[in-house]
């Protein structure tokens, strides 16, 4: 819990600073035609995602109804209102993996991470996605975490794999 608090607190501070920066951007773009999408892109580039606070600020700054801003954000796949995790887990559900229990692996991951496909854990450490074929069908089922492919993953071993990333994150924090 202590870790989570520290993390949230650190984020809050920087987020405020970033939002201040966003105001500068808004000032610059205020009167430009078609400014909304570039501003959203810049905002997402700064914050990593588009929290509601940012959207409200943008609506205000560009003098647009919040509904329009939210409508544009929901329309484009590039925009995300929740942050993507530090590690993206993709579970292969191609034929070979599917018949070899890829779905069970996915269920185990959902259970362990307490999130559904397309979501991110509260600590921002993991996002969960599904994918089709990594080309390692002989060693199904497979999952990929970032660029590393894990073969012959058992539902019971999912915890072990996740642990490595949790450990790495802790170490990173300690050093950082």
């Amino acid at each position, binding site marked *: 819990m202590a870790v989570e608090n520290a993390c949230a607190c650190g984020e809050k501070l920087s987020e405020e600073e970033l939002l201040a920066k966003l105001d500068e951007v808004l000032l610059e773009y205020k009167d430009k*035609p*078609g*400014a*909304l*999408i*570039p501003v*959203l*892109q810049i905002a997402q580039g700064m914050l990593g995602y588009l929290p509601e606070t940012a959207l409200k600020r943008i609506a205000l700054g560009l003098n647009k109804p919040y509904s*329009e801003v939210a*409508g*544009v954000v929901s*329309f*484009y*796949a*590039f*925009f995300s209102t929740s942050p993507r995790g530090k590690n993206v887990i993709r579970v292969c559900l191609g*034929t*070979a993996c*599917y*018949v*070899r*229990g890829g*779905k*069970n692996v996915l269920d185990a991951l959902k259970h362990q991470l307490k999130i559904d496909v397309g979501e991110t854990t509260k600590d921002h450490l993991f996002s969960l996605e599904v994918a*089709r074929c990594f*080309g*390692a*069908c*002989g*060693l199904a089922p497979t999952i990929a975490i970032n660029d590393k492919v894990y073969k*012959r993953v*058992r539902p019971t071993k999912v915890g072990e794999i996740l642990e490595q990333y949790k450990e790495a994150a802790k170490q990173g924090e300690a050093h950082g």
Partner: protein
Amino acid sequence: MKTPRLHMMMCFGTACVASGAPKVKEALVRELQKHGMQSDVALVETGCNGFCAGGPIITVYPGGTFYHDVTPHDVAELVEEHVVKGRPVERLMFRHPVTQKVIPCVKDIPFFARQCVRVLHNKGRIAAESMEEYIAQDGYAALEHALKMTPEQIIDEVKKSGLRGRGGAGFPTGLKWEFCRKAAGDVKYILCNADEGDPGAFMDRSLLEADPHAVLEGMMIGARAIGAKEGYIYCRAEYPLALERLDAAIKQCRERGLLGKGILGSDFDFDIFVSQGSGAFVCGEETALMRSVEGFRGEPRPRPPFPAQKGLWDKPSVLNNVETFGNIPLIIRNGFEWYRSVGTAKSPGTKIFALTGKVANIGLVEVPIGISLGEIVYDIGGGIPNGKKFKAAQIGGPSGGCIPKEHLNVPVDYETLVELGAIMGSGGLIVMDEDSCMVDMARFFLDFVQEESCGKCTPCRVGTKRMLEILDRICEGKGEMADIDKLQALGEQIKDTALCGLGQTAPNPVLSTLRHFREEYVAHIRDKKCPAGICAALVKAPCQNACPAGVNVPGFVSLTGEKRYAEALQLHRERNPFASVCARVCFHTCEDKCRRDTVDDSLAIRQVKRFLVEQEVTVQVPEIRENEVNAKKHVAIVGAGPAGLSCAYFLARLGYRPRVFEAEPRPGGMLVQAIPAYRLPREELAREVRMIERMGVDIEADSRLGRDFTLKGLREEGYEAIFLAVGAPTGTKLGIPGEELQGVTDGIRFLREYNLRGSVPVGKKVAVIGGGNAAIDAARTAIRLGAKSVTVLYRRTRDEMPAYAEEITEAEHEGVQLRTLIAPTELIGKNGKVTAVKCSPMLLGEFDRSGRRRPKEKNDAPILVEVDQVIAAIGQSLNASEAMDGIQVNLNKNGFFAVNPTTGQTNVEWLFAGGDAVLGPSSVAEAVAAGEKAAVGIDAMLSGEAHAFWREERAVDTKFDPEAEPVEYARAEARLIPVSKRKNNFAEVELPLTEGAATRECRRCLRCDFREET
């Protein structure tokens, strides 16, 4: 500063960067410094070179030496050898995929040599971020020229060039410009669509990365033509490198006065801005794209008004795609006549394709419009890897469709593609091989469109969802035959009623697969089978799925691994009585689909079986269900080949007592008449025939349909059902002069005569004509019977020969000569005896409907092959009407019996047919499958019910540890007796594996049939 003597052109396209080009460059810089040669060599970062599968790529000038797959480890050698000593490093060069010959120079590599590079002329030749290098290749000369023309003259030139929009529908660009030019209003916009969203497409990205100035120049000329002062490039945010290069290029233009006021001393004012797309597929549609640039949800609106009247911010606007703009400077610089010199009359110029999927050379290619699909896939793409077969090409992405192998020869142009149900699209070309399921592919694209549907109009939003639901159902094995019509109707409806172009074309992938691959949908629905082995719910294990007879391969393999041989054999004979026969002559499609292949090599399934049948002491007869009612029914089977005998076998298991009539003195059909004993010892076949006889089947040999009995006669005798398995017993004639000469025979007659009578006249110099298994069997038989020389004449190449590859190899080992690309035109004789075969040299021409290149005459002098015997083995046929004595049986287009594919029933209720008599010459396993289906069909007709208990899948209780890593044994090698010991006799060539080798091989199985408990 010293002038560099070497230029290393390093591909810094997205793909090469991803595969490590920057690391290679770092290593090069370090290594050159070490030798003190950093100023001898210029390292030039170019845009995408197009050969994306081989990245990182370096081309070294002078000379144009092409290196691919370069890693940092290779750099020391590269510098030491090539840079210092001038010795190019062969190891890193391109090898011809077939001949394995090294091709050092970029311009000689077929992938590049066969292309027609115009728009991509600068790729890999100039530094992607250098405006001056672009100018050195005549860049901006077209703009300078255009500024001296009137806007009308520019439009006229573009119109005359015949350039059509490269983004999809192919609307004439000049016309589009003219509409906008003529539209009222002072403020006009020109836009460039770089929102390439199709899965598998990366043409626009590559052009922007390799040659951004070409696109800018095209836009400038367009702006001048329509009267625009501002332009927008709408580029996806997912293309960071393209965006970076564009920004840099625009900045350079502004700095040096090519954008801004009074460009090149004229009165032309113009500037370009980049607008980033944010990942909405629908924004590829022009009205949606303009809404997005304006900063709104990118939803399309109905047209008219067309953007040329009311576009961006309601002003007249022109939107063209990246590649279209890339063509403009070429047209203005070289004139429309030059431009029209390649391509077709209706579609001049070139088209860029992103070639992906199951093709050897994945990458970016530019070809003249009108080139055949086959040339793109085979000549440029290098064909299909891993010996698989081409199945279809998907062109045009989610709006496009599939072109099957029958149309490999059609010209790729706008009109032809639309006729075939695809579209040119922006240029995504995905090659699919036999392992691609077309239903699954249609589902994939529909899933994509469904997810990307903007939701504004109902047909697209709801219609595609309904279609997707149906496809999901079919892939899960829950489809109904009515679903096919439903898909068709829904698709047509969406096509007619959706609001925008993307919605209207969304059903295309489904409609085109329905058109060209209807039988695959039917297989999924009716047979609950996915022929490609992709749809998870329908495939237990790929090997079993691939076996025509449906043998439980992982089951008998794992039982063999546990030395439970009797059980293994019994399991095999659940679906196929001919375990011992198939252990020797099966085409083993199971091995072609074996998933172990992705680890090292496929499992040697046939060899495991060969070992297994050697262990059989008592014949393992499977379960028989006695049935007194069935035993009294009269069922006749005509033909004791594998199809007829299998039908008898499965009927016997249901308690019937069928009678089999065989025209020849010995049962076995082609197994005994055509297949030589060195491949299939006669006792092995006899043992399995005896087994069937002992199950209550009567075989009456020497009893020929038409001679000894008739169908009507059988009916009169009380036979309630008759199965026709008469094969395709007649050899096809050559149809050339001289066929009547003495010493000319056909393959089937030659083999039958020897195999049944024990002797056949054999010449000293024998020519066998044909490339199938019968041809090779005849050739190897002739060698064994003492022919001095045996030459196989085949009109295509060895790759196209239908005979099994291992048989061809062994034939060569035994001394058979192959002469390919040679076609007999006349048989020459003296005193009524054949003395020579006159042949035309051939070359491979266009693609025929079987997806193979059609041989055509080379116009060289004819070749005379001296012979004293000619064996023609070019095909087999059936004279179906001959023995029907007046019964009207429908035939299929090849002259064989037409039957219901699930039951084998003909149009006559009591008459069934199967095997070669339906399929034409085909494999033993297919004949077994046909016999089994007919047995089930006959039983259903007679009893009104389905009793095929062997079709129930039963779990095998062998041990398997899913946690364990796969064993690391290599594939077991076949053991053959030496050529010297087999050349003069008919002893079996192949020896069985040892027990150790066989059980090790069994453990290599990955047990794809194993299911997790859920």
